[in-house]
């Protein structure tokens, strides 16, 4: 079976694609059948991915030399582009994670999307979403990956804007696509430069060539430029500062989509890309530094915003940005192991948190403000308790998954000697615990809001929550410092075993505990929330700045509407009044004037024409008589 699965790994992205086609063209009128097709395809993919992962992890040589099945896509002299499947521990892990989390989200969506008029369409889109993500993960060349990359962009556009009649959804979808487009411009340039300098975009070939870049007459500066441009793509797709603006708005889509975007697909694509081309970044320490700083800064930056937000999904969105920042930080300090580990654990608890939020939203008829919730734990025990598991996991309390991966990141940052980044990451860990438990206490404990009549969601939604909660607990046990199997599977260069550093461990637990305690103090123990309101009033300026997300959206909006649209208007007016008005119509007018002038001669009187004709003949004769020796004789002779 393992053998069979590895030879048929191309089925993993293909099956959800077929589900998409089948739903769109055949089963759209039957919602439940459509959902079953989508879930079935995803589960089958998951089945294949599981066995593929087993196969890959039992053949350690694949880390050195990935298994590639590729065929020619198109070629011409000087350009040969292949498509195929690349299997190594990183891609196998991703495929397994995407299909597993994806399947659970799909099952959840069966309940969540109930009675939605776009039920079938929804399942077709999410299938396509998963398919593109799996293509991206499995691809053996950068061009192929770019197809998946833009494909997930498209699907997120379709799904964020799923409630198309809402203007906010429409705008959010557009914003997501265009923000990522700006970033992809950089990625595209990076790809072109890579192709120009190395003549290929296959990962395997690039991995062989780039470490010896001097042999290809590539300067270190060029390589740094390439790495920087390639990194632009992940900045957009993974919602890193300064292109993070689209991700919080992405919550306009149905909640299962948010879970997909934030956990299994889309945003982790950027992290995966950096990991995939680690051989490139590894050669340019300066860009690695940039990756680390971007990640560390984003982690802290987003966490500060999350502290003040009120909408449940918006808080989670900023927490995603922050957590992805952690992953980038890990990659930037050179620990692929830690970065991918956090990606893995994050997928479970973030999917759990979003689906839990979805369950809450359904119960409260989409009232999203956490300040208007309260006391939900009693009415929605499964949602509540699993949500608590998610909060503990993300806050980093052992033995839950988030603790182990965050610990690895802190450790890697410390060991690489980035003390400032380490401090930032540690402080972020504190903030994370604080804002997550702020959310939890506000929503699930305290007095019930009498306006709400919540009731627990059906089993089709709660069962995936339970599964995800279990994974959020045990998912990190593969990478504990004492038995670190993870680092033997997934690494760059050679496996790195960090010594268990108890200082870091204890420190991060203390910070998380402090965050939780503060949240408890302000939002649970203090029933009337007097102290926190007082705090917000005293630091009004900071609060407003954070609540308005540092006004970055406003700045971009201004740029877009003033600069871009202004320039567009100028170009258009230039076109109408200069190119068209003066030049084209000018030429036409001059031609017209000539016509008017010549009209004077067109009198219609035969005598006039005869006169002109006679004068013309005379003129010809005169000219010829003086110039042409051949005709001069007869003419002058006639005169004589």
């Amino acid at each position, binding site marked *: 079976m393992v053998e069979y699965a590895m030879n048929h790994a191309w089925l993993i992205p293909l099956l959800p694609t077929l589900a998409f086609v089948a739903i769109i063209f055949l089963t759209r009128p039957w919602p439940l059948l459509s959902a079953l097709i989508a879930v079935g395809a995803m589960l089958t993919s998951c089945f294949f991915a599981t066995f593929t992962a087993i196969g890959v992890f039992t053949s350690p040589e694949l880390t050195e030399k990935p298994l590639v099945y590729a065929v020619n896509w198109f*070629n*011409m002299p000087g*350009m040969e582009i292949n498509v195929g499947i690349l299997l190594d521990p990183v891609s196998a892990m991703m495929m397994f994670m995407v299909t597993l989390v994806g399947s659970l989200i799909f099952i959840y969506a069966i309940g969540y999307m109930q009675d939605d008029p776009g039920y079938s369409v929804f399942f077709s889109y999410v299938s396509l979403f998963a398919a593109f993500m799996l293509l991206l993960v499995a691809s053996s060349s950068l061009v192929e990956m770019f197809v998946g990359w833009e494909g997930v962009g498209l699907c997120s556009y379709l799904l964020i804007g799923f409630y198309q009649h809402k203007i906010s959804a429409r705008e959010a979808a557009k914003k997501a696509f265009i923000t990522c487009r700006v970033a992809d*411009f950089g990625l595209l340039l990076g790809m072109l430069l890579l192709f*120009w300098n190395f003549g290929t975009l296959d990962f395997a070939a690039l991995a062989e060539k780039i470490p010896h870049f001097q042999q290809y007459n590539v300067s270190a500066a060029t390589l740094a430029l390439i790495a920087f441009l390639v990194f632009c793509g992940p900045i957009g797709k993974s919602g890193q500062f300064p292109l993070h603006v689209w991700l919080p708005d992405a919550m306009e889509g149905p909640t299962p989509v948010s879970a997909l975007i934030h956990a299994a697909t889309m945003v982790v694509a950027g992290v995966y890309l950096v990991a995939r081309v680690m051989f490139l970044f590894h050669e340019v320490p300066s860009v690695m530094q940039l990756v680390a700083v971007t990640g560390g800064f984003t982690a802290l930056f987003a966490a500060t915003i999350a502290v003040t937000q009120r909408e449940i999904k918006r808080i989670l969105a900023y927490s995603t940005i922050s957590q992805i920042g952690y992953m980038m930080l890990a990659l930037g300090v050179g620990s692929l192991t830690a970065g991918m580990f956090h990606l893995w654990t994050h997928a479970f608890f973030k999917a759990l948190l979003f689906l839990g939020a979805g369950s809450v939203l359904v119960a409260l008829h989409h009232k999203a403000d956490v300040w208007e919730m309260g006391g939900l734990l009693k009415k929605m025990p499964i949602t509540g308790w699993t949500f608590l598991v998610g909060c503990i996991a993300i806050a980093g309390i052992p033995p839950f998954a988030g603790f182990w991966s965050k610990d690895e990141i802190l450790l890697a940052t410390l060991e690489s000697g980035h003390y400032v980044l380490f401090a930032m990451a540690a402080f972020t860990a504190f903030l994370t615990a604080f804002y997550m438990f702020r959310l939890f206490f506000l929503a699930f404990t305290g007095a019930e809001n009498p306006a709400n009549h919540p009731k627990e969601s059906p089993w089709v939604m709660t069962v995936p929550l339970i599964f995800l909660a279990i994974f959020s607990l045990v998912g990190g046990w593969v990478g504990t410092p004492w038995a670190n199997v993870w680092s033997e599977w997934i690494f760059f260069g050679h496996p790195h075993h960090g010594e268990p550093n108890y200082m870091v461990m204890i420190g991060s637990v203390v910070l998380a505990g402090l965050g939780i305690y503060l949240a408890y103090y302000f939002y649970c123990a203090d029933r009337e929330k007097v102290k926190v309101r007082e705090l917000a009033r005293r630091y009004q300026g900071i609060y407003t700045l954070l609540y308005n997300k540092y006004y970055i959206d406003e700045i971009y909006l201004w740029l877009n509407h003033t600069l871009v649209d202004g320039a*567009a208007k100028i170009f*258009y007016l230039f076109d109408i009044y200069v190119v068209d008005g003066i030049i084209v119509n000018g030429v036409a007018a001059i031609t017209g004037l000539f016509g008017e002038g010549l009209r004077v001669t067109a009198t219609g009187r035969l005598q006039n024409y005869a006169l002109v004709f006679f004068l013309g003949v005379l003129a010809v004769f005169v000219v010829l008589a003086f110039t042409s020796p051949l005709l001069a004789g007869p003419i002058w002779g006639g005169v004589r």
Partner: protein
Amino acid sequence: MGEFPVLLTILLAPVAAALIMAFLPREEKLLIKCVAAAGTFTSMALAFYTYFTYDTGTGGVQFVQQIPWIKDLGVTFYLGVDGVSLPLMLLISILGFSAVFASWNVDHRPRDFFILLCLLITGVMGTFVTQDLFIFLLFYEMVVIPIYILIIIWGSTKRVTKEYAGMKLTIYLLIGSAFLLVGVVALFMKTAGILGAPDMSFAGLARAAKSLSQFDQIWMFAVMLFGFGSLISMWPFHSWSPDGYAGAPTAVSMIHAGVLKKIGGYGLIRIALYVLPVGAQFWAPVMAFLGVCGVVYAAMAALAQKDLKYIVGYSSVSHMGYVMLAVGSLSVIGLNGAIAYMFAHGIMAALFFSMIGFIYEKTHTRWVPDLGGLHRQIPKISAGFMLAALATLGLPGLISFIPEFTIFIAAFNKYGGLAVAAIAGVIVTALYALRAGAYALFGPPREEYDHLQDIKGPELVPLVVLGTVLVVGGLLPSLLFNVINCGTIPLMAEINAALQIGGKF
């Protein structure tokens, strides 16, 4: 030759349809439309047959048919296709068929409309299937007349009147062709004596032109560049294009933006580049520069538009800038990209215009602020519109991405920084394409459009045909490139050989 004259049949099937229609009573509207559909369908089916039976192993000009015509001028009625012309021939046949169905609801003098449409299709087709310069020009001139009549009778008046639009477009085409004619006549005069017998075939002219002086090549190329350039709406000779499309009826916009423009690109490659390589080398940077200007300028102008047809009109000017840039790169990759992109753009522009045509037909407006929320009332049109918009912004997996990518590679290799400006165009393109979709189709539905009927029956044909090509071509780019390679590799080899000899002069 005992073989079935397949190219001649492709060329004449629409003419046959036009002749039959001429003898039908004008009240038989349905019958007339069916005849037009049958004629263009025959053409399309045979074009597909030709495309897939073209022997890529052998390459070169195939399906040849030669009938000597004017001996003194060396003119032969010479039909034949190779990797450069075959995709474009296929394109016009697909668009011709789709255009008939996009015009299914034409009620004003349908007989005259479809006769002219069929003649237009034949004219465009003729330019692609011939290998003789004289015949090429003949068909090219034949195109102008139906276009003009179609616009001024069946067109629409918005920002500019349809008479202005038709006149502007026609005059531009004629000025372009006048310059072209100067170049062609000069070329013929200068080369006529060289080979003994005069020869107007492309290959013959290319052979003869090798003896031209560098100066002659340069000025002749300049004249042709102006001629073909204004046809392909090269910046700054583009302003006929948005106005012309806005004024034209749907089918004409589809065919004009889809293929007629491409005669310019095709002529540049097939005639100007092939016959005058030394001139081409001299002007290549200029072509690339004007191309980039066009890309950026028109994309920005498109951003400021509120009329759907103007958006697509400027967008097509912008996209043709990519073609100019690719031709200016003078490389196999660039030419491959240029031809593939012309094909891709033809399909997506036609889909765009046909969907806009339906929207206009149903809502009687193309003004974006007056639209909105249409996805609820007319989901199929909206799906087609979005498909076209996504192809316009070069979404991978749709037909336009790979050609665009090849163009970028070629341009980047040759022009570096200049190419970056053109590549930045993809951001602006995404901006205007998505805005158009968002404001016209999404958002809250409007009551006044509740009664609208979505497309059904014959109206679905353009969406199905063009949509299929759009997706299949995007997933299997080798379908295009395997054929195009057969044309561009020998072409570029000839050009490179000529440039090396040219160095000796």
